[in-house]
């Protein structure tokens, strides 16, 4: 019996180890391609352990690719600004909804909730942003369409406020003459730190990884984020491959495979570095957002 239990434990560990290898190895293939000498890559193809190791890719990226740094800067900018505005909108909307004494509370909740049930879809949304609000090729195109991206995060904050913060605390603060904004910033938010961190991470990850807003609304290369640069490189290469005959000579200046993979690695790196330290907040966001989001 004990013997069998040990065997089962070992088998389960083997299964999980194989599984996490499946999660990590594809990613490592990309990383190792970025460290492979270009000629070797062309000859041997993608390999997990490069035959000839080289830092040429990263040298190139750091030396000459101002577009990549610009893209990086854009990504950081929209992630920081977008997350901050998103956070503000979400918390300012969630706090009043958490107050049981607010008149018309259920009507306002429904107003929020309905957006999760029904939407106009891409065509009308695009028309409005592009033709009515003229957001195309502005930095706002990368920020505004994803603010309050998921009504469920508002509901998540609201539920947390109303279940974890005693009404008496709010009452006491108001008797002392504190304004609502003061109650929110000085009492509620300090007590909600884990939830706020979770929200920041989910929203921040969404902005960092976003390429769709760029695809829909941005064609100006100066506004490209790192994800859009990656997306654009694929498009250019496919375009050239399809129309190779148009250009006659095959000598078109394309980023090499190594460089492409290097940029992809750089795009993922910050997420991979901070993720292990904040894993429990991601898990919280997934568990809460997953069941109802």
């Amino acid at each position, binding site marked *: 019996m004990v013997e069998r*239990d040990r065997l089962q*434990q070992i088998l*389960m*560990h083997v299964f*999980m180890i194989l*599984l*996490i290898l*499946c*999660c*990590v190895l*594809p990613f490592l*293939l*990309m990383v190792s391609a970025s460290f492979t000498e270009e000629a070797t*890559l062309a000859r*041997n*193809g*993608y*390999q997990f352990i490069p035959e000839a190791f080289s830092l040429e890719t990263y040298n190139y990226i750091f030396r000459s690719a101002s577009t990549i740094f610009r893209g990086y800067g854009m990504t950081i900018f929209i992630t920081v600004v977008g997350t901050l505005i998103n956070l503000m*909108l979400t918390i300012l*909307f969630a706090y*009043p909804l958490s*107050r049981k004494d607010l008149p018309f509370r259920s009507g*306002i909740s429904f107003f*929020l909730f309905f957006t999760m*049930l*029904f*939407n*106009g*879809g*891409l*065509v*009308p*949304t*695009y028309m*409005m942003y592009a*033709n009515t*609000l003229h957001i195309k090729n502005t930095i706002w195109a990368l920020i505004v369409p994803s*603010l*309050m991206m998921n009504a469920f995060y508002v509901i998540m904050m609201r539920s947390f406020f109303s279940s974890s913060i005693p009404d008496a605390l709010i009452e006491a603060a108001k008797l002392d003459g504190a304004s*609502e904004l003061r109650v929110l910033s000085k009492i509620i938010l300090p007590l909600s730190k884990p939830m706020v961190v979770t929200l920041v991470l989910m929203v921040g990850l969404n902005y*960092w*990884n*976003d*390429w769709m807003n760029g*695809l*829909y609304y941005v064609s100006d290369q100066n506004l490209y984020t790192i*994800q859009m640069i*990656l997306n654009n490189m694929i*498009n250019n290469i496919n375009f050239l491959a399809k129309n190779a005959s148009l250009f006659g000579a095959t000598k078109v200046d394309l980023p090499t495979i190594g460089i492409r*993979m290097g940029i*992809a690695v750089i795009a*993922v790196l910050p*997420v991979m570095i901070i*993720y292990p330290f904040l*894993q429990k907040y*991601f898990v919280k966001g*997934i*568990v809460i957002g*997953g*069941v109802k989001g």
Partner: protein
Amino acid sequence: MSNMVKSKKNVNSYKFQERKILRYWQLYLMLLPGTLYLIINNYLPIGGLVLAFKQYDYQKGIWGSVWNGLNNFKFLFSTKDAYLMIRNTLGYNFIFIITGTIFAIVVAIILNEIKKTLPKKIYQIFILIPYLISMVVVSYIAYAFLATDSGFINNTMGTKTNWYMSPKYWPYILVIVNLWKSFGYNSIIYYATVIGIDSSLYEAAVVDGASRLQRIWNVTLPGLRPTIITLTLLAVGRVFYSDFGLFYQVPQNSGLLYDVTTTIDVYVYKGLIVLNDVGRSAAAGFFQSICGFILVLGANFAVSKLDKDNVLF
């Protein structure tokens, strides 16, 4: 007399209501930015659904364009595109739901059965890595495996398969990529439910001499049932929607693969932005919005019948 008292009381309570609302002005002010945003981002575009019944003219805008009845829908459904994209959207979603759910449950149960705490923590960290990567980067990774000349698969197998031109492989590739990207996320949700199961049930099963499999079958799975039902129904509520990135980025927009990679979202995007065929695109979008809405309501109704605690609204 009593009437007068009553009406006076009404006036009072009306005034009282008004005062009460005034007293909450700060809270309403806080709601204002979000309300404006939801109106612009979510409510106004709903009005734009009328585009599906119009012949769109850029000069005249949405409201100035002339009505053309059901013509957009007639055009849309007269092509084989309509059949293909609906088949693909529904078909892939059903396969994703089945494979994703089964695999996530297996992983969640194994995580729960493993005794050592540290490895368990490490496994949980690693299985979420694919979830954190954007679809663009996923398409780069897929390319590293599938490229014809240098790709890892052709390299190790010694084959020369041109993956990006062979539609027959793509249903499998897309299912694998989707599973790879999303299983960690779903496993974490199921795992959270598993660890919430009352441990006295397990102890009782052990006392009764139940084997590991018997415990899983008789305690864990029944404990997971409500979550399985809820998540599955919610996913069913979204079967008319697809992960645009998965179907657009990963096949790298290869023309030969359109038949097996075009979902409604891909079609709407291409019609709107690439082909400038607003009419058909709007019709497909309208179809998606309405079917999606009906299914979400249906799914919620089903959840409310089966599992009241997890009902959405």
